[in-house]
């Protein structure tokens, strides 16, 4: 009698699925009432915690910063054989930790794939995402993310084998191109090729993509130019080394990369933002990790910035802009991590394997795009 036919099972499972969908899809008006009835207190309290309490307090209570990073792009976010993280983005995680906790090493790095990163941010698994993430309107709007000051102005390029003699993307009709899945580069690639036929091969990790590229499965590798430079610098000698590869001159997208925090926490967003701005301000004033601790000049602006005592009519005081950060946070950031130029040169600059020049990532006074609002 109790024969359980697949049809019955199907009906039951579809019913269950339908219920979940209905629960997700029900109008927002009755949600509050059902939540009160079914969800109870927990739902409302978690929502309140997300909206009310600041991440700044949470991080300071915890004592470490959870930072979402890349672990496969040399120069930006990379783990060495011993599991140590290094790179431009990684240094900005350290800078935030230095500002908020006074210790640049109080960071728990969370390596994330391109597809995982926003979910990790939304679910609270990470406090801040610094993983060569491009600032776009739909990410700003749909992912519940707040993008902060851009740390690296990048653009998308195409890397090909020198021996193929390709000089322009227009030469690449009917060829195959490897691209990381779930990235803005994938969208720009489709837009750049337009009606020209090509074969996109999408991988979710750089190492398998590199294997396919080495085997000649794809003729081109497209990504942010800085990433391509990192890959090219690390290209194995057995495959011809960096000289076997050419990065085409054409830049076919704008890729402003910077830190991302979750929507709805203005204080935390301001904190992370001013850490980035502090590294730029420090370079404007030639404050470096070497000289910042011994600064004893009387420039009022620099003394305000570093949280040093300022003589006023009513006695000595220190400047507190009310960001919720310690008054000496800039000193901590610069002495422990460095100013923008130091971070750039150390990870991706001319003396590194990537050998990138500052280009548009120079100070505005040098004709670049880096410009910090005044700290006062």
């Amino acid at each position, binding site marked *: 009698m109790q024969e359980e036919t697949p049809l019955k099972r199907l009906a039951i499972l579809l019913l*269950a699925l339908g219920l979940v969908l209905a629960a997700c899809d029900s109008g927002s008006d009755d*949600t509050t009432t059902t939540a009160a009835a079914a969800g109870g207190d927990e739902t409302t309290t978690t929502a309140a915690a997300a909206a009310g309490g600041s991440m700044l307090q949470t991080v300071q209570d915890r004592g470490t910063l959870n930072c979402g990073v890349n672990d496969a792009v040399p120069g930006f976010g990379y783990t060495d054989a011993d599991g140590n993280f290094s790179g431009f983005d990684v240094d900005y995680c350290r800078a935030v930790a230095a500002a908020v906790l006074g210790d640049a090493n109080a960071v728990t790095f969370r390596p994330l794939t391109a*597809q995982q990163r926003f979910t990790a941010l939304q679910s609270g698994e990470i406090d801040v995402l610094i993983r060569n993430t491009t600032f776009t309107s739909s990410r700003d709007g749909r992912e519940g993310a707040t993008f902060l000051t851009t740390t690296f102005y990048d653009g998308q390029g195409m890397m090909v084998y020198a021996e193929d003699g390709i000089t322009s993307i227009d030469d690449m009709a009917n060829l195959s191109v490897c691209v990381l899945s779930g990235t803005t580069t994938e969208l720009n690639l489709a837009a750049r090729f337009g009606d020209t036929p090509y074969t996109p091969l999408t991988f*979710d990790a750089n190492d398998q993509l590199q294997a396919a590229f080495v*085997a000649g499965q794809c003729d081109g590798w497209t990504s942010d130019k800085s990433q391509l430079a990192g890959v090219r610098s690390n290209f194995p000698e057995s495959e011809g080394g960096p000289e076997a590869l050419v990065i085409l001159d054409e830049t076919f997208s704008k890729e402003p990369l910077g830190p991302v925090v979750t929507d709805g926490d203005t204080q935390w967003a301001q904190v992370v933002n001013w850490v980035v701005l502090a590294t730029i301000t420090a370079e404007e004033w030639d404050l470096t990790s070497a000289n910042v601790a011994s600064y004893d000049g009387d420039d009022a602006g620099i003394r305000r910035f570093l949280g040093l005592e300022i003589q006023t009519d009513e006695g000595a005081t220190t400047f507190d802009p009310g960001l919720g950060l310690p008054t000496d946070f800039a000193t901590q950031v610069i002495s422990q991590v460095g100013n923008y130029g130091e971070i750039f040169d150390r990870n991706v600059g001319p003396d590194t394997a990537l050998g990138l020049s500052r280009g548009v990532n120079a100070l505005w006074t040098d004709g670049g795009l880096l410009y910090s609002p005044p700290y006062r």
Partner: protein
Amino acid sequence: MKRPPFWRNIRVIRAALQIVAVAVVVGAFLYLGNNLRNELVAKGLPTDFSFLSQPTGVNIADSDFDPASPVWRALLVGIKNTFLLVIVGIPFLTILGTLIGVARLSTNWLVAKAAMVYVETLRNIPPLLIILFVFNAVILQLPPPRDPSTPLDWFVISNLKITGPGFAASSGAGALLAIALFAVLAAVIVGIWRTKYSETTGHHSHRVLWSLGVFVAIVLVGYFLTGRPVSMSFPDLDGRVITGGFGGLGSYFAVLIALVMYTASHVAEIVRGSIQAVPKGQTEAANAIALSGFQRLRYVILPQAFRIALPPIINQYLNFAKNTSLAIAIGFTEITLITFQAIGNGYPAPQLILLLMGAYLLFSLTISLLVNILNRRLQLVGN
């Protein structure tokens, strides 16, 4: 005598327990669904499915998919690619698994040991590693697309795409397809008639020959009547463009080969166990009436073993269908890759994951429905 109160009636207790169980499950789903929804609303994230009609913005390899097409079309392409893995993979893994399962019981020492090594190696390696191995060590070692090999001029083989001879259809092919479907129907009817004839007269039915003959005759006549709309087509290479022929991406073959080999090792064990579960008397009886080794397997052992093997083999079919999701590691555009791609491109994860679960559920339930129908037909009367 006074009847006990109704709440001590075993039937009432059972029904009540079932109602409670269903209520708990439904309540849990509602609670989780509401929780998800509230969190999404609190974070200002979308909770509806309107994103399905937004443009995808990407191209998909080996398809004429247009970046302006909506997300749901991309998901359909993913489902089609998963389906192509499942529909081709299941017959192959069944045949390979049966052969190896029978080989494990061979009296030839070498054959039996070779089959044992195959089974014990492959079923103890995670399928993801087999896929990565086949992709990196076999497919990627083929010549690159800039310099493909063209054996016999019948194939164009590169690590990007493998193309072989296929069929090319011109106008009238639809009519021929209709005629072919009619021919299948006619063949089935003839088969039934021959079976009845054999049962009433006792003469040999030759039903397979009769059915095949009817099918071939009708299709041949139809082929010429419709003006020969189908012809052989060989791949033609012009620079990098391959026209004609029939083929698939290298990554498709990597997943297919790897998962067929992996799943066949499990099927082989089921087949071996099922053959051993057929009573020994059956083998002895077959020997006693002087059947050859092949006849013994074909007419006595395998039909009975198959009946035992079918239910556990369903599980392997389902595993095969679900394991195709591992193709994401080598970039084959099946449904999981397409879904994660959409998530990465800014479409909401909870809704897309829910759709992905629904897609695999659909695959699994369809397979289990079809095989269960077969299973019921094979059951012994009275079971």
